[in-house]
């Protein structure tokens, strides 16, 4: 089993955190994980993309080459990049609060009003990344939701415990999409 993902958004929207949580959940379930992130002369508001490969065997090719099984697009400027990285039969979740869908053959796209749901569930649009992650977990089953909740609690709970409740609420709002 090998599952390839692309998570992309504008700087600060949390695409890297999605990738990190997915990796930690994969490790918790004894899977091999590999994460690559774009780096460069980035600035606030610039695009940020993370690629994650989850596998039950050692990972040889570390590249996602237009063969992603799962994509999450958080902002309009990164939507096209996600589309370009999706493989046939892949599943793309996009933040419909900001993005207008472009139909693409052999690609299932799911609209998630993540910015709006994050405000109603957690009180802040900053939880939109966790709404998207929740929707992707519920929609594809690529990770166990209990494992993601646990790594979310473990990784964010001790650092910013006051934000844990709203983060979990955002994740659960995504699960319910």
């Amino acid at each position, binding site marked *: 089993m090998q599952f390839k993902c692309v998570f992309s958004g504008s700087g600060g929207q949390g695409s890297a955190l999605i990738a990190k949580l997915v*990796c*930690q959940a994969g*490790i918790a379930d004894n899977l*091999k*994980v*590999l*994460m*690559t*992130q774009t*780096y*460069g*002369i980035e600035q606030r508001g610039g695009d940020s993309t993370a690629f994650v490969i989850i596998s039950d065997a050692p*990972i*040889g*090719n*570390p*590249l996602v*080459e237009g063969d992603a099984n799962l994509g999450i697009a958080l902002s309009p400027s990164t939507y096209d990049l996600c589309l370009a990285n999706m493989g046939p039969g892949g599943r793309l979740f996009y933040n419909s609060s900001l993005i207008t869908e472009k139909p693409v053959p052999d690609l299932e796209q799911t609209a998630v009003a993540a910015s709006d749901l994050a405000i109603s569930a957690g009180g802040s649009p900053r939880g939109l990344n966790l709404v998207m992650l929740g929707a992707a977990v519920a929609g594809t089953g690529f990770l166990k939701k209990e494992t993601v909740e646990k790594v979310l609690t473990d990784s964010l709970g001790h650092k910013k415990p006051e934000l844990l409740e709203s983060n979990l609420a955002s994740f659960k709002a995504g699960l319910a999409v």
Partner: protein
Amino acid sequence: MSSETLFLKNAETFAESMVRCGVRYHFAYPITPATDVMKHAAVILPKYGGRMIQMESELAVSNALSGCACTGKLGATSSSGPGMSLMQEAISFMCAAELPAIMFDSMRVGPGDGDIIGAQSTYFQATRGGGHGDYRTIVLAPYSGQSIVDLMPEAVRLTYQYRNPVLFVLDGVTSQMTETATFPEPHDYSADFDTSGWRYTGTKDHPKRFVVTGSYSHNQGYEMNERLRAKYEKIKENEQRWESAQVEDAELIVVAFGIHGRMATELVSRLRAEGRKVGAINPITLWPYPDKAFEQLPQSLKNILVVEMNHGQMLDDVRLAVNGRVPVHFLGKTGGDTPLCTLREMETKALEILG
């Protein structure tokens, strides 16, 4: 403490691994994509009684490293591209003075300042050396976080046993990748070696020593070079390392190191599943180059394909090792948003050669 699995950037894995294997002093100057090594070293070294020291330039870094090595202590540095270029004089000095040190080049695009994105374009500099003289640096090429961890005890052994700097080269893409690596129990491998015969510790208990390279007569210069030549021959004979996959009946062998070596293994699995007779050789030591991997090429072999993140540097060493027995083809790229050949491009080229 038993083994421990950590999820780290491979640059951080390098720092974690070197410290767990005995490095106590890390000298560095920030540069993308190598800064994560010094950042991680700064956090963990105090717990082991060591220090990360940020110098004012790479020139200062490399000379501080030389000074540290003169005391017999295990020091390290990390840099990239133009930073490594600035260190070449000191590396030539350390090779001549026969000083142990661990270095890490998170390779990026050149020439000049080039680009901060990963590359393998420092192969020539690493294996030939940018300093002057008949010197050699031992060069190790890991391809994943785990292979860094697995190579580190060997690196410490090599640098002390041969009293020669050891350079790790890893393309910036792989060094910025995050993956799991399992670390064995920490062990200071440098403590396994006796440095009392040569290190600088003052002259209270022994006469004055000269670790540095002064040729006070033409004959001394000659003798130094003959001594180094004999040592390099011994290293070439004993320390070649490589990994191979299904070369025994191959019609095509893909030769690649680092990230492309890792991808070549997957390419072999993919093409073998289609019945194509493909094998791979993944050099782990770039100097000494693993010529022995090419000594007994199979009778079935018709072609060799070299894949690199540059415009053909290791290619020269493969041609020397193959010595015209079969055609050697090349696929390479440097720079761009995806600064390496994709698996699909490697597969297309391999199928084109296979016919």
